């Protein structure tokens, strides 16, 4: 089992390198040499200085190697626009916010979505099923900016519940954005859980469990649930990654100081090193999410444990 984990971990390194290479090449295409292409006219002397500082006059592979070194020593370089901040600084002060937002959103998604899916599966084809799936399907199809704006419109404006709609300080300011961000994954989980549970309920071993006279609680709670949740767990990893990397919409609407918002503004401002650094950060998150899921899967499904060794 540990060998499996280690091997999986080792695989992430070439993956990461490849990702860095990709982003780097793309960024090079874009920037070429940003200081020559931007609209700001920069005096020649300062230009030369910047070139040297950012290694912009060296051949690309040197820049790349430099950058990789930087990444692995956790130095993502300075911001090209915000003169007194490095990308690291930005990450340090704003990533925890996005992480927290993503975590709460995800928590909401699980707490609301899984029971919804279970309810739908256990009362399949009855009214509660249709209602639950109505909610789930709507949540699935409706873009998150609508969910966010509707939440703000009704809770904060129309009904004046007193929930703050911007910032990320007091605990109540975290409620609406977390729900807004978590709405889509909630719908996703609800649909997924319903599907897997329905399938599991058809399995022979569930019939065996019933034939043994086990109480319904146990049949559903143990036999059915454990098997149904395996595919859900596998979907959860990439989903968490998607949630965190897609949080910029919510952050923009709710004025939350997370890296998502910084990402967007760095692109508009052509602050390429921030963009690049944050993209790589995002990639790391996605890779980690996938990795966690792979490992988790090994734990949950005993059949795969042996197959891996």
């Amino acid at each position, binding site marked *: 089992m540990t060998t499996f984990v280690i091997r999986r971990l080792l695989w992430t390194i070439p993956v990461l390198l490849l990702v860095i290479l990709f982003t780097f090449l793309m960024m090079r295409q874009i920037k070429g040499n940003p200081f020559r292409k931007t609209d700001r006219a920069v005096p020649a002397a300062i230009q030369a200085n910047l070139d040297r500082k950012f290694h912009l006059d060296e051949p690309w592979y040197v820049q790349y190697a430099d950058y990789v070194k930087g990444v692995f020593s956790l130095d993502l370089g300075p911001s090209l626009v915000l003169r007194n901040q490095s990308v690291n600084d930005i990450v340090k002060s704003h990533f925890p916010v996005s992480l927290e937002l993503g975590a709460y959103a995800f928590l909401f998604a699980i707490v609301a979505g899984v029971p919804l899916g279970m309810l739908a599966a256990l009362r399949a*084809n009855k009214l509660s099923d249709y209602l639950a799936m109505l909610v789930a399907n709507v949540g699935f199809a409706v873009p998150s900016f609508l969910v966010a704006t509707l939440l703000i419109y009704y809770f904060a404006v129309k009904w004046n519940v007193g929930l703050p709609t911007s910032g990320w300080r007091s605990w109540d300011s975290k409620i609406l954005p977390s729900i807004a961000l978590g709405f889509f994954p909630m719908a996703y989980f609800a649909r997924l859980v319903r599907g897997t549970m329905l399938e599991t309920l058809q*399995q*022979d*071993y569930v*019939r*065996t*469990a*019933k*034939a*043994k*006279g*086990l*109480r*319904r609680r*146990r049949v559903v709670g*143990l*036999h059915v649930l*454990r*098997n149904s949740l*395996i595919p859900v767990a596998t979907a959860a990893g990439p989903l968490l990654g998607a949630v965190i990397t897609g949080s910029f919409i919510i952050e923009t609407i709710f004025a939350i100081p997370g890296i998502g918002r910084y990402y967007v503004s760095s692109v508009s401002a052509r602050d390429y090193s921030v963009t690049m650094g944050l993209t790589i950060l995002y990639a790391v998150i996605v890779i980690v999410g996938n990795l966690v899921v792979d490992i988790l899967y090994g734990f*949950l*499904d*005993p*059949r795969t444990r042996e197959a891996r060794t």
Partner: protein
Amino acid sequence: MPLLEVRGLRTYFATREGDVKAVDDVSFSVERGRTLGIVGESGCGKSVTALSIMGLIPKPPARIVSGSIQFDGKELTQLREAELEKLRGRDIAMIFQDPMTSLNPTLTIGTQITETLRRHLGMSAREADRRAVELLEEVRIPRANERLKDYPHRYSGGMRQRVMIAIALSCNPKLLIADEPTTALDVTVQAGVLDLLEELREEHQMAMIVITHDMGVVAEAADDVVVMYAGQIVEQASSLELFDRPEHPYTEALLGALPSLEGERGREERLASIPGRPPDLLDPPAACLFAPRCPFAGLNDYCSVEAPELRELRPGHWVRSAHPASERAAVAV
């Protein structure tokens, strides 16, 4: 009083086009300590009968329309789900056809045995584990102690079926229903499982119902036999009687379909199969359901017009046919 008495059981499945009459007026009884074989081809209703007894038919589309199922003095059709749950696994146990899928792949074998023990007999974890090891030994699983912690995928098909048997016997049920217990197994393993079942049955003094489509299994295991076709009973007799003097054309055909190694037929001839297919249970004709495939139908025209009743041809031997074997010989062609 028989341990189990089924009378006039009708189980229908509601579909968009109407009711499918999966079990239509079935009656039989099982005495303590004896084995009843229910035999018939796929779709004849034998499994549904067993599931109806256990109360395991899927309630939305299926329902018991009428009939009574008396088990040990209790009327099962009147019991609430909670009471049926107490009965299942404890007084009536059931094992199923496919051992590969009948066990939960994410729980250990030990858990799947002990959960029944703890649920019905209130054993502690340690007691249950000990008893589980004993049970595995009873069904001849080697190194039972270590294997308790294994997952089902580590067991072969034959071993899994033995585990199913062990689980079924764990609370000393009065009746064991075995639905096609050997169908999914290799021929060589089949004999072993049947032997084991018989041995344990005697030891535990259980009654048993064996459901199968294989006459060989019936010959091996059953004391009494019920032959089913298209949801109805077409012949009922003791096993010896049935094999010695089969009456219903269908039974004869089933027996004729057995491959034989010696005798006049030898290995040269093709297996005699029964031409045609069973009727649509959605809207069965009000005539003999076997008539379309019966080699004797049409000798008098009643077969495609009137449904024959189940009648007692000889003491203990019931037949539902207008042309049972003993009456045919009398008619000169």
